[in-house]
């Protein structure tokens, strides 16, 4: 049976259909979860997509984290369910405290939409399990607030726990320690600024997002599947 991916749609999100298209092209099932739905409908994976949830007003992700669906997402993650935040989704995850740190305005103070080179730093996460450490991959970035920052203690912990999963080769936004993506200590919650779905079709200039999405679609590990069903 295909892996069911629930893509949370906040008002102002805009990458939900792109993620759905990429997931379907790889054989997964994709469904859109409206932000005030009371349940996750038993999906296997949750993706918080890119965009501008609530217009990014106040701070990116600051309002979205209070959407009703987020309580379910937190519980799903605590039960081990895979949750991935891409771009604005990453910002929501940090605002919600599901991942450490914060994403500030880019150092160049400009929105940046371009192809980024990334080095795979850890394959011990739900999104990078199918990759190899040290691989260089190409995926687009598209953000104004992608400049990752955190306290020194947090950074030390991220490093010692192998929680940095992707680093930029050629830092495009001023991120601390070139961080492009991290996971939580449980390895099941991942946030990243690059867009794997934008590197999922040969006509789009890169297929390097495919192994990441495939990792996510791989049969969920026992104990993780459908933690909130019933």
């Amino acid at each position, binding site marked *: 049976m295909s892996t069911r991916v629930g893509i949370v749609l906040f*008002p*102002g999100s*805009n*990458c939900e*259909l*792109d993620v759905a*298209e*990429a997931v379907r092209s790889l054989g997964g099932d994709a469904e859109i979860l409206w932000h005030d739905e009371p349940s996750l409908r038993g999906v296997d994976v949750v993706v918080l997509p890119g*965009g*501008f949830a*609530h*217009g*990014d*007003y106040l701070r990116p992700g600051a309002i979205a984290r209070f959407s009703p669906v987020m309580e379910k997402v937190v519980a799903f993650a605590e039960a081990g369910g895979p949750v991935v935040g891409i771009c604005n989704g990453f910002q929501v995850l940090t605002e919600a405290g599901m991942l450490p740190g914060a994403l500030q305005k880019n150092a160049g103070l*400009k*929105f*940046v*939409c*371009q192809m980024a080179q990334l080095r795979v730093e850890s394959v011990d996460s739900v999104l990078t399990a199918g990759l190899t450490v040290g691989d260089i991959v190409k995926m*687009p970035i*598209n953000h*104004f607030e992608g400049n990752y920052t955190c306290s020194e203690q947090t950074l030390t912990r991220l490093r010692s726990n192998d929680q940095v999963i992707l680093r930029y080769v050629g830092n495009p936004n001023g991120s601390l320690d070139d961080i492009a993506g991290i996971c939580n200590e449980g390895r099941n919650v991942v946030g990243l600024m690059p*867009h794997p*779905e*934008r590197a*999922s*079709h*040969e*006509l*789009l*200039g890169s297929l390097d997002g495919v192994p990441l999405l495939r990792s996510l679609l791989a049969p969920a590990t026992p104990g993780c599947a459908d933690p909130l069903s019933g």
Partner: protein
Amino acid sequence: MSEPLHRALGLTDDEAAEIERILGRRPNSLELAMYAVMWSEHCSYKSSRLHLRRLPTAGEGVLVGPGENAGVVDVGDGIAVAMRIESHNHPSAIEPYQGAATGVGGILRDIFTMGARPIAVMDPLRFGPLDDPRSRWIAEGVVSGISGYGNSVGVPTVGGEAEFDETYRDNPLVNVFCLGVLPVENLVLGRATGVGNLAVLVGAGTGRDGIGGVSVLASAGFSEGEDESAKRPSVQVGDPFEEKRLIEACLALYDAGLVVGIQDLGGAGLTCATSETASRAGMGMDVDISAVRRREPDMEPFEVMTSESQERMLAIVTPQDLDEVLAVCRKWEVSAGVIGRVTSGGSLRVLDGFGGEVLADIPAASLHDDAPCYDRPRTPPARDAQGDDHVATTEGVDLGEDLLAMLLDTSWVWRQYDHQLFLNTVLGPGSDATLLRLKHPLTGRDTGRGLALTTDGNHRWCSVDPRQGTAMVVAEAVMNLATVGARPVALVNCLNFGNPEHGEVMWQLSEAIDGMAEACRAFAIPVVGGNVSLYNESGGADIAPTPVVGMLGLVDGLDVPPPTTSLVDGSRLILIGDHVAALGGSRWAFERGQRGGPLPPLDLRAHSRVATAVRDLVNGGLVNSVHDVSAGGLGLCLAEMAVRSGVGFNVAGIHGLAELFGESPSRCVVGADPELAGTVLRVCESAGAPTTELGFAGGAHLHVEDLLEVSLTEASSRYHDRLPSALGAGTTQG
């Protein structure tokens, strides 16, 4: 002695008399204000309408031509495309960020009004010179505004232009093109049919922003010494998040079949939306002005009726569907309320509560159909002023330096735009033409075909000869589409000109329209919509005539990405098209304060043959790079191919300055694998397109035998650094 009200509102004495004749009585001030905004140049096209009729508008697949909110073309597989182009020149000169942002917002509404999901924005931008701090301030603000609004609203900005020239010093041209896709059966028109149907105002509250914006901002030039900051209160402020929710709510309403007709609120606000929807359907409308949700207290009826507050739509729905309509709007957190009813008889009445006092009562159609239409005097310029001056001498000219000075990488601009959303962008900004995958808007099914888009303009060609120059602009758009393998399907235009009360400007406009009509007929391309922006002037000087076209093309089989402008090492370089030496209208001549003589000749049939050859080569996979020859001539064309790829070239057979930098039309450079070069030449020959073998791609230099040699490293750094270093030099508003 105080000025009569109609004059203060921008109406002439004759226009005021005509209004009195239509009504059979003196209009009250609200009625006068409504006529004033609707009969402004911006809304009525009163100076240009007469001439626009000469453009060909019919063509295969055209579902909706000019006159509606956007042109619509059937592109097969049950999919239609809606497209439109507009200008936001004057608002952007005053407040660059908001001017550009609301320009994006406005054009998106024109597209989703038709039932289409907007999937692509392009921004042809023209600013004053880079060494002018205020022009840099405008450029930076405009780009930030497009980025801030466009990215957030979730529509990718996939292309455009960025030009810098003295003629736009105080009057930037901020044009914006938008394209949307819709299932053919979802096509909605802005018509208020059905007596008793309800007019629902959807979206943002109504405030005082843009009050009089139409007449103040769009229909009067900036006179010298005038304090532009004093005009700032009438600048509209955009809210991309409101617009995003509005788009989603409207698309949901269409999918559920809940809308009879719909119209966005743009210039002239409610007055325009209510009267246009009613008069297109041959109906009238009662508007309850007290039901309009306001953002500010104590607004006068005329303010409510003419406000240009952004992010608002007027939907016509049946009474039975109202609850469902309101529920959809609630889901998307978009406010909605009934503000009008469709009536028979054709009157637009503004009421203080249905059944309350009648504040205005005018024939809805008179605001459009009876708008003045002027045949303003046209005066061709004196012959000697038309530019027969020749480039006197090339002695002491450093061709290498001249070439380097023309290189400019626009990626500083478009890196700030999300140009990839929706996973359609095969070739984005920086390409000769943008190429998008064509997917069904509802099912997402990939058709295996492509949409190609380009926007083009060239004020130098059009100043030397507005007629032929405009035809060359259309021709260039056709060639740009050919470089991605597309055939042209439809065109929209944005005619940016100076003050129409100046005889020479009206002559330029009329000539440009004729040139566009000739070219469109020759290429069988219908004009499906357009926009006219007049009074582009500053300190009494009119801008150079700048008609801009947006062209749609189709690629029939899109399986692999087409070649780009980047050279491939070791390729043979071939010029397709006639090789004519003439500097008329060239960038090289203009940058030296000359016009370079008359334009080199344009042969529309020969152009078609070259475009066909290029298209066949691209679609046949026979070439590995392709770039049309345009501003800057063959020299700049080759140089751009080199710096974009990091591969140099070694060419010969270019004789002198005029062949290097002349802008003779109908030419394209292709690179081919040496083994395929013979086939390339044969394909061109059978298409009837002449060819010249130029040389090879490769090496670390830009080398033109006997003319110039420049190191690739130097050329690349000049190309990449120009814009960032110019804009990094700081900007200032004053």
